[in-house]
Protein backbone atom coordinates (compact mmCIF):
# COMPACT_ATOMS: atom_id res chain seq x y z
CA UNK A 1 0.00 0.00 0.00
CA UNK A 2 1.26 3.41 -0.90
CA UNK A 3 -0.44 6.18 1.05
CA UNK A 4 1.22 8.95 -0.87
CA UNK A 5 -0.41 8.34 -4.22
CA UNK A 6 -3.91 9.04 -2.92
CA UNK A 7 -3.13 12.25 -1.02
CA UNK A 8 -0.04 14.45 -0.68
CA UNK A 9 1.35 15.21 2.74
CA UNK A 10 0.50 18.89 2.39
CA UNK A 11 -3.15 18.06 1.65
CA UNK A 12 -3.23 15.56 4.50
CA UNK A 13 -1.89 18.23 6.87
CA UNK A 14 -4.34 20.84 5.62
CA UNK A 15 -7.28 18.46 6.02
CA UNK A 16 -6.42 18.02 9.69
CA UNK A 17 -6.00 21.74 10.27
CA UNK A 18 -2.26 21.71 10.81
CA UNK A 19 -0.34 24.95 10.10
CA UNK A 20 3.22 25.62 9.03
CA UNK A 21 5.38 26.06 12.07
CA UNK A 22 7.80 28.45 10.40
CA UNK A 23 5.12 30.69 8.90
CA UNK A 24 4.90 34.42 9.58
CA UNK A 25 1.90 35.48 11.69
CA UNK A 26 -0.50 38.17 10.48
CA UNK A 27 0.58 41.76 11.25
CA UNK A 28 -2.15 42.18 13.85
CA UNK A 29 -1.24 38.94 15.61
CA UNK A 30 2.41 39.92 15.45
CA UNK A 31 1.83 43.28 17.13
CA UNK A 32 -0.26 41.59 19.78
CA UNK A 33 2.37 38.97 20.56
CA UNK A 34 4.99 41.72 20.69
CA UNK A 35 2.87 43.59 23.21
CA UNK A 36 2.50 40.41 25.27
CA UNK A 37 6.28 40.17 25.41
CA UNK A 38 6.75 43.69 26.76
CA UNK A 39 7.91 42.49 30.19
CA UNK A 40 10.40 40.17 28.53
CA UNK A 41 11.71 43.02 26.36
CA UNK A 42 12.12 45.28 29.37
CA UNK A 43 13.74 42.55 31.50
CA UNK A 44 16.04 41.49 28.69
CA UNK A 45 17.19 45.09 28.19
CA UNK A 46 17.91 45.69 31.89
CA UNK A 47 19.57 42.30 32.30
CA UNK A 48 21.81 42.93 29.28
CA UNK A 49 22.77 46.35 30.64
CA UNK A 50 23.50 44.93 34.07
CA UNK A 51 25.58 42.09 32.65
CA UNK A 52 27.63 44.49 30.49
CA UNK A 53 28.93 46.23 33.57
CA UNK A 54 29.44 43.31 35.95
CA UNK A 55 33.08 42.82 35.01
CA UNK A 56 34.07 46.44 35.62
CA UNK A 57 34.88 47.59 39.11
CA UNK A 58 32.69 50.68 39.09
CA UNK A 59 29.78 48.73 37.63
CA UNK A 60 26.82 50.69 36.38
CA UNK A 61 28.39 53.92 37.62
CA UNK A 62 29.98 53.91 34.16
CA UNK A 63 26.62 54.80 32.71
CA UNK A 64 27.03 58.19 34.38
CA UNK A 65 30.79 58.43 33.99
CA UNK A 66 30.85 57.81 30.24
CA UNK A 67 28.71 60.83 29.28
CA UNK A 68 30.51 62.96 31.88
CA UNK A 69 33.91 62.07 30.45
CA UNK A 70 32.63 62.68 26.94
CA UNK A 71 31.34 66.09 27.93
CA UNK A 72 34.65 66.89 29.63
CA UNK A 73 36.62 66.04 26.50
CA UNK A 74 34.40 68.17 24.27
CA UNK A 75 34.49 71.04 26.74
CA UNK A 76 38.28 70.86 26.88
CA UNK A 77 38.74 70.85 23.12
CA UNK A 78 36.02 73.18 21.91
CA UNK A 79 35.36 75.31 24.97
CA UNK A 80 38.89 75.85 26.27
CA UNK A 81 41.45 75.01 23.57
CA UNK A 82 39.77 76.19 20.39
CA UNK A 83 37.38 78.61 22.02
CA UNK A 84 35.20 79.02 18.96
CA UNK A 85 31.71 80.35 19.25
CA UNK A 86 30.75 80.99 15.60
CA UNK A 87 27.80 83.14 16.56
CA UNK A 88 26.71 80.77 19.30
CA UNK A 89 26.40 82.26 22.75
CA UNK A 90 26.73 79.12 24.86
CA UNK A 91 28.86 76.88 22.68
CA UNK A 92 29.63 74.29 25.38
CA UNK A 93 25.97 73.50 26.08
CA UNK A 94 25.21 73.73 22.35
CA UNK A 95 27.86 71.16 21.53
CA UNK A 96 27.21 68.73 24.38
CA UNK A 97 23.44 68.71 23.75
CA UNK A 98 24.14 67.91 20.12
CA UNK A 99 26.57 65.13 20.93
CA UNK A 100 24.33 63.45 23.52
CA UNK A 101 21.19 63.56 21.39
CA UNK A 102 22.97 62.32 18.30
CA UNK A 103 24.73 59.57 20.27
CA UNK A 104 21.31 58.10 21.10
CA UNK A 105 20.49 57.73 17.41
CA UNK A 106 23.97 56.53 16.55
CA UNK A 107 24.10 53.90 19.27
CA UNK A 108 20.57 52.68 18.53
CA UNK A 109 21.59 52.15 14.95
CA UNK A 110 24.77 50.28 15.86
CA UNK A 111 22.99 48.13 18.45
CA UNK A 112 20.14 47.43 16.05
CA UNK A 113 22.49 46.18 13.35
CA UNK A 114 23.95 43.61 15.75
CA UNK A 115 20.70 42.73 17.53
CA UNK A 116 19.90 39.70 15.35
CA UNK A 117 23.42 38.43 14.66
CA UNK A 118 24.49 38.58 18.31
CA UNK A 119 21.42 36.71 19.52
CA UNK A 120 21.30 33.89 16.98
CA UNK A 121 21.41 31.19 19.66
CA UNK A 122 18.39 32.77 21.34
CA UNK A 123 16.53 32.96 18.03
CA UNK A 124 17.35 29.33 17.30
CA UNK A 125 16.19 28.16 20.72
CA UNK A 126 12.98 30.00 21.56
CA UNK A 127 9.83 31.41 20.00
CA UNK A 128 9.20 35.10 20.35
CA UNK A 129 8.54 37.94 17.92
CA UNK A 130 12.00 38.74 16.63
CA UNK A 131 11.29 42.47 16.73
CA UNK A 132 11.70 42.12 20.52
CA UNK A 133 15.46 42.16 20.02
CA UNK A 134 15.84 45.53 18.23
CA UNK A 135 13.24 46.95 20.64
CA UNK A 136 15.23 45.72 23.64
CA UNK A 137 18.47 47.14 22.27
CA UNK A 138 16.94 50.57 21.69
CA UNK A 139 15.51 50.42 25.22
CA UNK A 140 19.01 49.77 26.54
CA UNK A 141 20.18 52.87 24.72
CA UNK A 142 17.19 54.81 26.05
CA UNK A 143 18.13 53.88 29.62
CA UNK A 144 21.61 55.17 28.89
CA UNK A 145 20.24 58.34 27.28
CA UNK A 146 18.05 59.15 30.28
CA UNK A 147 21.15 59.06 32.48
CA UNK A 148 22.99 61.21 29.95
CA UNK A 149 20.08 63.67 29.98
CA UNK A 150 20.40 64.09 33.75
CA UNK A 151 24.09 64.89 33.24
CA UNK A 152 23.16 67.22 30.40
CA UNK A 153 20.63 69.17 32.48
CA UNK A 154 23.29 69.78 35.11
CA UNK A 155 25.71 71.01 32.44
CA UNK A 156 23.07 73.24 30.85
CA UNK A 157 22.30 74.82 34.22
CA UNK A 158 25.99 75.15 35.07
CA UNK A 159 26.62 77.07 31.86
CA UNK A 160 24.06 79.67 32.91
CA UNK A 161 20.84 78.67 31.14
CA UNK A 162 17.66 79.31 33.13
CA UNK A 163 14.95 76.71 33.76
CA UNK A 164 11.94 77.66 31.62
CA UNK A 165 8.61 76.15 30.60
CA UNK A 166 10.30 75.21 27.34
CA UNK A 167 12.05 72.40 29.23
CA UNK A 168 8.78 70.48 29.14
CA UNK A 169 9.18 70.14 25.37
CA UNK A 170 12.08 67.81 26.10
CA UNK A 171 9.56 64.99 26.69
CA UNK A 172 7.83 65.03 23.26
CA UNK A 173 11.20 65.50 21.56
CA UNK A 174 12.58 62.41 23.27
CA UNK A 175 9.46 60.38 22.51
CA UNK A 176 9.58 61.30 18.83
CA UNK A 177 13.29 60.55 18.67
CA UNK A 178 12.70 57.23 20.39
CA UNK A 179 10.08 56.33 17.78
CA UNK A 180 12.45 57.33 15.02
CA UNK A 181 15.32 55.33 16.52
CA UNK A 182 13.22 52.20 16.99
CA UNK A 183 12.20 52.46 13.34
CA UNK A 184 15.68 52.80 11.91
CA UNK A 185 17.01 50.09 14.25
CA UNK A 186 14.35 47.68 13.01
CA UNK A 187 15.28 48.43 9.41
CA UNK A 188 19.03 48.12 10.03
CA UNK A 189 18.43 44.96 12.09
CA UNK A 190 16.96 43.19 9.07
CA UNK A 191 19.70 44.49 6.79
CA UNK A 192 22.40 43.53 9.30
CA UNK A 193 20.93 40.07 9.84
CA UNK A 194 21.40 39.09 6.21
CA UNK A 195 24.35 41.25 5.21
CA UNK A 196 26.72 41.28 8.15
CA UNK A 197 29.04 43.64 6.32
CA UNK A 198 26.73 46.45 7.36
CA UNK A 199 28.32 46.31 10.80
CA UNK A 200 31.67 47.18 9.24
CA UNK A 201 30.18 49.95 7.18
CA UNK A 202 28.02 51.50 9.87
CA UNK A 203 30.64 53.51 11.83
CA UNK A 204 31.54 55.20 8.57
CA UNK A 205 27.93 56.08 7.83
CA UNK A 206 27.09 57.35 11.32
CA UNK A 207 30.28 59.42 11.42
CA UNK A 208 29.36 61.13 8.15
CA UNK A 209 25.83 61.66 9.39
CA UNK A 210 27.16 63.25 12.58
CA UNK A 211 29.09 65.85 10.57
CA UNK A 212 26.02 66.76 8.52
CA UNK A 213 23.71 67.03 11.49
CA UNK A 214 24.75 70.37 12.88
CA UNK A 215 26.38 69.05 16.01
CA UNK A 216 29.31 71.43 15.56
CA UNK A 217 27.73 74.28 13.57
CA UNK A 218 24.62 76.41 13.46
CA UNK A 219 22.42 75.03 10.67
CA UNK A 220 20.64 78.25 9.53
CA UNK A 221 24.03 79.97 9.44
CA UNK A 222 25.51 77.21 7.32
CA UNK A 223 22.47 77.28 5.04
CA UNK A 224 22.85 81.00 4.53
CA UNK A 225 26.54 80.58 3.73
CA UNK A 226 25.65 78.17 0.93
CA UNK A 227 22.76 80.35 -0.26
CA UNK A 228 25.18 83.28 -0.64
CA UNK A 229 27.31 81.11 -2.92
CA UNK A 230 24.28 80.26 -5.04
CA UNK A 231 23.41 76.85 -3.53
CA UNK A 232 20.07 77.67 -1.98
CA UNK A 233 18.96 74.05 -1.90
CA UNK A 234 21.57 73.06 0.69
CA UNK A 235 19.90 74.88 3.59
CA UNK A 236 16.50 73.13 3.45
CA UNK A 237 18.17 69.74 3.15
CA UNK A 238 20.35 70.37 6.20
CA UNK A 239 17.28 71.52 8.08
CA UNK A 240 15.14 68.49 7.13
CA UNK A 241 17.83 65.97 8.11
CA UNK A 242 16.24 63.90 10.91
CA UNK A 243 19.57 63.73 12.74
CA UNK A 244 19.54 67.52 12.95
CA UNK A 245 15.81 67.96 13.64
CA UNK A 246 15.85 66.26 17.06
CA UNK A 247 19.06 68.03 18.08
CA UNK A 248 17.67 71.45 17.13
CA UNK A 249 14.41 70.85 18.98
CA UNK A 250 16.23 69.65 22.08
CA UNK A 251 18.46 72.73 22.04
CA UNK A 252 15.57 75.13 21.63
CA UNK A 253 13.77 73.50 24.53
CA UNK A 254 16.72 73.48 26.92
CA UNK A 255 18.69 76.61 26.01
CA UNK A 256 17.25 80.11 26.16
CA UNK A 257 20.47 81.44 24.63
CA UNK A 258 20.02 79.15 21.62
CA UNK A 259 16.54 80.53 20.93
CA UNK A 260 18.18 83.97 20.92
CA UNK A 261 20.95 82.71 18.61
CA UNK A 262 18.30 81.60 16.14
CA UNK A 263 16.32 84.85 16.31
CA UNK A 264 18.06 86.58 13.36
CA UNK A 265 17.49 83.59 11.05
CA UNK A 266 13.70 83.43 10.90
CA UNK A 267 13.47 79.70 11.75
CA UNK A 268 10.07 78.10 11.20
CA UNK A 269 9.48 76.08 14.41
CA UNK A 270 6.21 74.60 13.18
CA UNK A 271 8.01 73.11 10.22
CA UNK A 272 10.71 71.73 12.51
CA UNK A 273 8.09 69.97 14.65
CA UNK A 274 6.38 68.71 11.53
CA UNK A 275 9.66 67.20 10.36
CA UNK A 276 10.11 65.57 13.77
CA UNK A 277 6.67 63.96 13.68
CA UNK A 278 6.80 62.90 10.04
CA UNK A 279 10.27 61.38 10.33
CA UNK A 280 9.28 59.49 13.47
CA UNK A 281 6.17 58.04 11.82
CA UNK A 282 7.86 57.17 8.53
CA UNK A 283 10.80 55.51 10.26
CA UNK A 284 8.70 53.62 12.78
CA UNK A 285 6.00 52.32 10.46
CA UNK A 286 8.37 51.70 7.56
CA UNK A 287 11.02 50.07 9.74
CA UNK A 288 8.50 47.87 11.50
CA UNK A 289 6.93 46.72 8.26
CA UNK A 290 10.31 46.06 6.66
CA UNK A 291 11.49 44.04 9.66
CA UNK A 292 8.25 42.10 9.93
CA UNK A 293 8.37 41.02 6.27
CA UNK A 294 11.39 38.81 6.97
CA UNK A 295 10.21 37.52 10.37
CA UNK A 296 10.33 33.81 9.48
CA UNK A 297 13.78 34.03 7.91
CA UNK A 298 15.76 35.33 10.90
CA UNK A 299 17.96 32.68 12.42
CA UNK A 300 19.26 31.22 9.22
CA UNK A 301 22.53 33.10 9.51
Amino acid sequence: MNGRSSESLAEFAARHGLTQSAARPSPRKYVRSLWQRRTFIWNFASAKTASTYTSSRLGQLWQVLTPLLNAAVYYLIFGVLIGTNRGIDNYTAFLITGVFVFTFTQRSLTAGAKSIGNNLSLIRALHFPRASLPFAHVLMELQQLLISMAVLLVIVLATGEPITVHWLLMVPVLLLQLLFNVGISLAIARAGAFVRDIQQLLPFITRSWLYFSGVFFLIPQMGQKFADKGYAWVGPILEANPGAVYIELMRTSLMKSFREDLAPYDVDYTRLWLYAVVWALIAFLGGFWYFYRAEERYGRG
Partner: protein
Amino acid sequence: MAKASLKEKARVSGSASQQPEVVLDPAREPIVVVDGLHIVYRVYSGGGGKGTAASALLRIVRRQNRPQMTEVHAVKGVSFVAYRGDAIGVIGTNGSGKSTLLKAIAGLLPPARGAVYTQGQPSLLGVNAALMRDLSGSRNIILGCLAMGLTQEETRAKYESIVKFADLKKGFIDYPMSTYSSGMGARLRFAIAAARTHDVMLIDEALATGDAKFKKRSKDKIDELRRDAGAVFLVAHNLDVIEETCNRVIWLDDGRMKMDGDPKEVLRAYTEATGK
Protein backbone atom coordinates in the same frame (compact mmCIF):
# COMPACT_ATOMS: atom_id res chain seq x y z
CA MET B 1 28.77 2.60 3.80
CA ALA B 2 27.68 5.29 6.22
CA LYS B 3 31.19 6.74 6.16
CA ALA B 4 31.16 7.34 2.43
CA SER B 5 27.96 9.36 2.51
CA LEU B 6 29.27 11.55 5.33
CA LYS B 7 31.94 12.84 3.00
CA GLU B 8 29.41 14.00 0.46
CA LYS B 9 29.45 17.74 -0.25
CA ALA B 10 26.64 19.79 1.22
CA ARG B 11 24.31 20.66 -1.61
CA VAL B 12 20.64 20.39 -2.38
CA SER B 13 20.26 17.04 -4.04
CA GLY B 14 16.88 15.90 -5.26
CA SER B 15 17.43 12.27 -4.57
CA ALA B 16 15.88 10.94 -1.42
CA SER B 17 16.55 7.33 -2.23
CA GLN B 18 16.89 6.39 1.44
CA GLN B 19 13.64 8.02 2.50
CA PRO B 20 11.15 5.24 3.30
CA GLU B 21 7.71 5.73 1.78
CA VAL B 22 5.33 7.58 4.11
CA VAL B 23 2.20 5.59 4.81
CA LEU B 24 -0.69 7.64 6.11
CA ASP B 25 -2.85 6.30 8.90
CA PRO B 26 -6.33 7.84 8.46
CA ALA B 27 -7.54 6.44 11.77
CA ARG B 28 -5.18 8.55 13.91
CA GLU B 29 -4.93 12.30 14.48
CA PRO B 30 -1.73 13.80 13.05
CA ILE B 31 0.12 16.34 15.22
CA VAL B 32 3.23 16.95 13.12
CA VAL B 33 3.60 16.46 9.36
CA VAL B 34 7.09 16.84 7.91
CA ASP B 35 6.97 17.07 4.12
CA GLY B 36 10.18 16.73 2.08
CA LEU B 37 12.12 18.94 4.46
CA HIS B 38 15.49 20.42 3.54
CA ILE B 39 17.43 22.61 5.97
CA VAL B 40 20.42 24.62 4.85
CA TYR B 41 22.17 27.10 7.06
CA ARG B 42 25.10 29.40 6.50
CA VAL B 43 28.15 29.46 8.70
CA TYR B 44 30.69 32.24 8.96
CA SER B 45 33.93 30.39 9.43
CA GLY B 46 35.73 33.58 10.47
CA GLY B 47 39.35 34.63 9.99
CA GLY B 48 40.97 36.19 6.92
CA GLY B 49 39.50 38.93 4.78
CA LYS B 50 39.77 42.66 5.26
CA GLY B 51 37.19 44.24 7.50
CA THR B 52 37.63 47.88 6.47
CA ALA B 53 34.65 50.05 5.64
CA ALA B 54 35.85 50.44 2.06
CA SER B 55 36.16 46.73 1.30
CA ALA B 56 32.79 46.08 2.92
CA LEU B 57 31.21 48.70 0.69
CA LEU B 58 32.78 47.12 -2.36
CA ARG B 59 31.38 43.70 -1.43
CA ILE B 60 27.89 45.09 -0.95
CA VAL B 61 28.03 46.93 -4.27
CA ARG B 62 29.15 43.75 -6.03
CA ARG B 63 26.57 41.70 -4.08
CA GLN B 64 29.20 39.16 -3.12
CA ASN B 65 29.01 36.89 -0.13
CA ARG B 66 31.83 36.80 2.32
CA PRO B 67 34.46 34.46 0.94
CA GLN B 68 34.73 32.49 4.18
CA MET B 69 31.02 31.76 4.32
CA THR B 70 29.99 28.14 3.84
CA GLU B 71 26.63 26.46 3.55
CA VAL B 72 25.76 23.41 5.61
CA HIS B 73 23.06 21.15 4.25
CA ALA B 74 21.97 19.48 7.47
CA VAL B 75 18.63 17.88 6.61
CA LYS B 76 18.08 16.46 3.13
CA GLY B 77 14.50 15.66 2.25
CA VAL B 78 12.94 14.07 5.34
CA SER B 79 9.22 13.18 5.41
CA PHE B 80 7.13 11.59 8.15
CA VAL B 81 3.92 12.01 10.13
CA ALA B 82 3.69 12.03 13.94
CA TYR B 83 0.33 11.23 15.53
CA ARG B 84 -1.23 12.16 18.86
CA GLY B 85 0.32 10.21 21.69
CA ASP B 86 3.48 9.37 19.81
CA ALA B 87 6.77 9.44 21.66
CA ILE B 88 9.35 9.42 18.90
CA GLY B 89 13.03 8.78 19.48
CA VAL B 90 15.45 10.31 17.00
CA ILE B 91 18.79 8.53 16.67
CA GLY B 92 21.86 8.85 14.49
CA THR B 93 25.58 9.48 14.67
CA ASN B 94 27.02 12.89 15.59
CA GLY B 95 26.26 15.45 12.91
CA SER B 96 23.48 13.42 11.32
CA GLY B 97 21.04 16.33 11.68
CA LYS B 98 19.04 15.23 14.73
CA SER B 99 19.12 18.54 16.59
CA THR B 100 18.61 20.47 13.37
CA LEU B 101 15.50 18.41 12.61
CA LEU B 102 14.14 19.19 16.07
CA LYS B 103 14.76 22.89 15.62
CA ALA B 104 13.06 22.80 12.24
CA ILE B 105 9.99 21.12 13.74
CA ALA B 106 9.96 23.84 16.37
CA GLY B 107 9.90 26.35 13.51
CA LEU B 108 13.18 27.88 14.63
CA LEU B 109 15.14 27.09 11.47
CA PRO B 110 13.34 28.06 8.29
CA PRO B 111 13.18 25.25 5.68
CA ALA B 112 15.14 25.69 2.46
CA ARG B 113 12.60 23.42 0.74
CA GLY B 114 9.62 21.43 1.93
CA ALA B 115 7.55 22.28 4.99
CA VAL B 116 6.66 21.34 8.54
CA TYR B 117 2.98 21.41 9.52
CA THR B 118 2.07 21.26 13.19
CA GLN B 119 -0.90 21.45 15.51
CA GLY B 120 -0.19 23.99 18.21
CA GLN B 121 3.19 25.46 18.88
CA PRO B 122 6.04 22.95 19.24
CA SER B 123 8.71 24.00 21.72
CA LEU B 124 12.19 22.87 22.47
CA LEU B 125 12.73 22.03 26.09
CA GLY B 126 15.63 24.29 26.93
CA VAL B 127 16.34 27.93 27.74
CA ASN B 128 20.15 28.05 27.90
CA ALA B 129 20.35 30.70 25.22
CA ALA B 130 18.21 33.19 27.10
CA LEU B 131 20.21 33.02 30.31
CA MET B 132 23.09 35.33 31.19
CA ARG B 133 26.03 33.90 33.07
CA ASP B 134 26.96 37.17 34.74
CA LEU B 135 23.60 37.54 36.44
CA SER B 136 22.20 35.90 39.56
CA GLY B 137 20.20 32.68 39.47
CA SER B 138 17.02 34.40 40.61
CA ARG B 139 17.24 37.01 37.88
CA ASN B 140 17.85 34.25 35.33
CA ILE B 141 14.74 32.39 36.47
CA ILE B 142 12.65 35.48 35.73
CA LEU B 143 14.40 36.12 32.43
CA GLY B 144 14.12 32.48 31.33
CA CYS B 145 10.42 32.22 32.17
CA LEU B 146 9.61 35.45 30.35
CA ALA B 147 11.67 34.31 27.36
CA MET B 148 9.63 31.11 27.17
CA GLY B 149 6.52 33.24 26.92
CA LEU B 150 5.13 33.05 30.45
CA THR B 151 3.45 36.19 31.74
CA GLN B 152 4.77 38.11 34.70
CA GLU B 153 2.13 36.62 37.01
CA GLU B 154 2.84 33.06 35.84
CA THR B 155 6.54 33.68 36.35
CA ARG B 156 5.96 34.89 39.89
CA ALA B 157 3.75 31.88 40.59
CA LYS B 158 6.33 29.39 39.28
CA TYR B 159 9.35 31.02 40.89
CA GLU B 160 9.28 29.13 44.20
CA SER B 161 8.74 25.73 42.58
CA ILE B 162 11.65 26.32 40.19
CA VAL B 163 13.98 27.24 43.06
CA LYS B 164 12.82 24.19 44.95
CA PHE B 165 13.24 21.84 42.00
CA ALA B 166 16.74 23.14 41.19
CA ASP B 167 17.66 22.45 44.82
CA LEU B 168 20.77 24.66 44.85
CA LYS B 169 23.07 25.05 47.81
CA LYS B 170 21.83 27.68 50.23
CA GLY B 171 22.34 31.26 49.08
CA PHE B 172 23.52 30.35 45.61
CA ILE B 173 20.32 31.60 44.02
CA ASP B 174 21.57 35.17 44.57
CA TYR B 175 25.04 34.51 43.13
CA PRO B 176 25.89 34.94 39.44
CA MET B 177 25.40 31.75 37.42
CA SER B 178 29.05 31.89 36.38
CA THR B 179 29.95 30.86 39.95
CA TYR B 180 27.84 27.69 39.77
CA SER B 181 29.34 24.25 39.31
CA SER B 182 28.36 22.65 36.00
CA GLY B 183 25.90 20.35 37.78
CA MET B 184 24.22 23.23 39.58
CA GLY B 185 23.94 25.21 36.37
CA ALA B 186 22.41 22.25 34.55
CA ARG B 187 19.89 21.70 37.36
CA LEU B 188 18.76 25.31 37.33
CA ARG B 189 18.50 25.35 33.52
CA PHE B 190 16.41 22.19 33.55
CA ALA B 191 14.19 23.51 36.33
CA ILE B 192 13.47 26.68 34.36
CA ALA B 193 12.89 24.82 31.09
CA ALA B 194 10.47 22.34 32.66
CA ALA B 195 8.33 25.09 34.18
CA ARG B 196 6.16 25.23 31.09
CA THR B 197 3.89 22.68 29.41
CA HIS B 198 3.99 22.30 25.63
CA ASP B 199 1.76 21.09 22.80
CA VAL B 200 4.57 19.35 20.99
CA MET B 201 7.58 18.77 23.13
CA LEU B 202 11.08 18.43 21.74
CA ILE B 203 13.74 17.18 24.11
CA ASP B 204 17.44 17.19 23.40
CA GLU B 205 19.30 14.62 25.43
CA ALA B 206 21.88 16.94 26.97
CA LEU B 207 19.17 18.16 29.33
CA ALA B 208 19.08 15.39 31.85
CA THR B 209 22.46 15.83 33.45
CA GLY B 210 23.51 15.90 37.05
CA ASP B 211 23.90 13.34 39.78
CA ALA B 212 21.88 10.12 39.96
CA LYS B 213 19.32 11.61 42.32
CA PHE B 214 18.63 14.53 40.01
CA LYS B 215 18.52 12.26 36.96
CA LYS B 216 15.72 10.30 38.54
CA ARG B 217 13.80 13.48 39.39
CA SER B 218 14.28 14.97 35.93
CA LYS B 219 13.10 11.73 34.30
CA ASP B 220 9.94 11.88 36.41
CA LYS B 221 9.47 15.50 35.41
CA ILE B 222 9.85 14.68 31.71
CA ASP B 223 7.31 11.87 32.06
CA GLU B 224 4.92 14.30 33.68
CA LEU B 225 5.41 16.85 30.87
CA ARG B 226 4.94 14.06 28.31
CA ARG B 227 1.51 13.20 29.65
CA ASP B 228 0.37 16.77 28.98
CA ALA B 229 1.91 17.06 25.53
CA GLY B 230 0.34 15.94 22.23
CA ALA B 231 3.53 14.39 20.87
CA VAL B 232 7.08 14.10 22.12
CA PHE B 233 10.36 13.97 20.23
CA LEU B 234 13.42 12.78 22.07
CA VAL B 235 16.97 13.02 20.77
CA ALA B 236 19.37 10.76 22.62
CA HIS B 237 22.56 8.78 22.21
CA ASN B 238 21.63 6.58 25.09
CA LEU B 239 19.65 3.88 23.28
CA ASP B 240 18.29 2.39 26.52
CA VAL B 241 16.47 5.63 27.30
CA ILE B 242 14.89 5.55 23.83
CA GLU B 243 13.83 1.94 24.09
CA GLU B 244 12.32 2.66 27.50
CA THR B 245 10.32 5.76 26.62
CA CYS B 246 9.52 5.72 22.90
CA ASN B 247 6.91 3.85 20.85
CA ARG B 248 8.58 4.75 17.56
CA VAL B 249 12.13 5.50 16.39
CA ILE B 250 13.47 7.54 13.47
CA TRP B 251 17.03 6.89 12.34
CA LEU B 252 18.77 9.78 10.61
CA ASP B 253 21.95 9.29 8.65
CA ASP B 254 23.72 12.30 7.14
CA GLY B 255 20.51 14.31 7.02
CA ARG B 256 18.42 11.56 5.40
CA MET B 257 15.95 9.25 7.01
CA LYS B 258 17.26 5.73 7.05
CA MET B 259 14.51 4.00 8.98
CA ASP B 260 11.26 4.84 10.72
CA GLY B 261 9.37 2.29 12.78
CA ASP B 262 9.20 0.04 15.79
CA PRO B 263 11.94 0.81 18.36
CA LYS B 264 13.24 -2.78 18.63
CA GLU B 265 13.57 -3.19 14.88
CA VAL B 266 15.21 0.19 14.21
CA LEU B 267 17.53 0.00 17.19
CA ARG B 268 18.71 -3.47 16.17
CA ALA B 269 19.49 -2.27 12.64
CA TYR B 270 21.21 0.82 13.98
CA THR B 271 23.37 -1.14 16.40
CA GLU B 272 24.38 -3.50 13.60
CA ALA B 273 25.27 -0.64 11.22
CA THR B 274 27.31 1.35 13.71
CA GLY B 275 29.01 -1.80 14.96
CA LYS B 276 28.36 -1.20 18.63
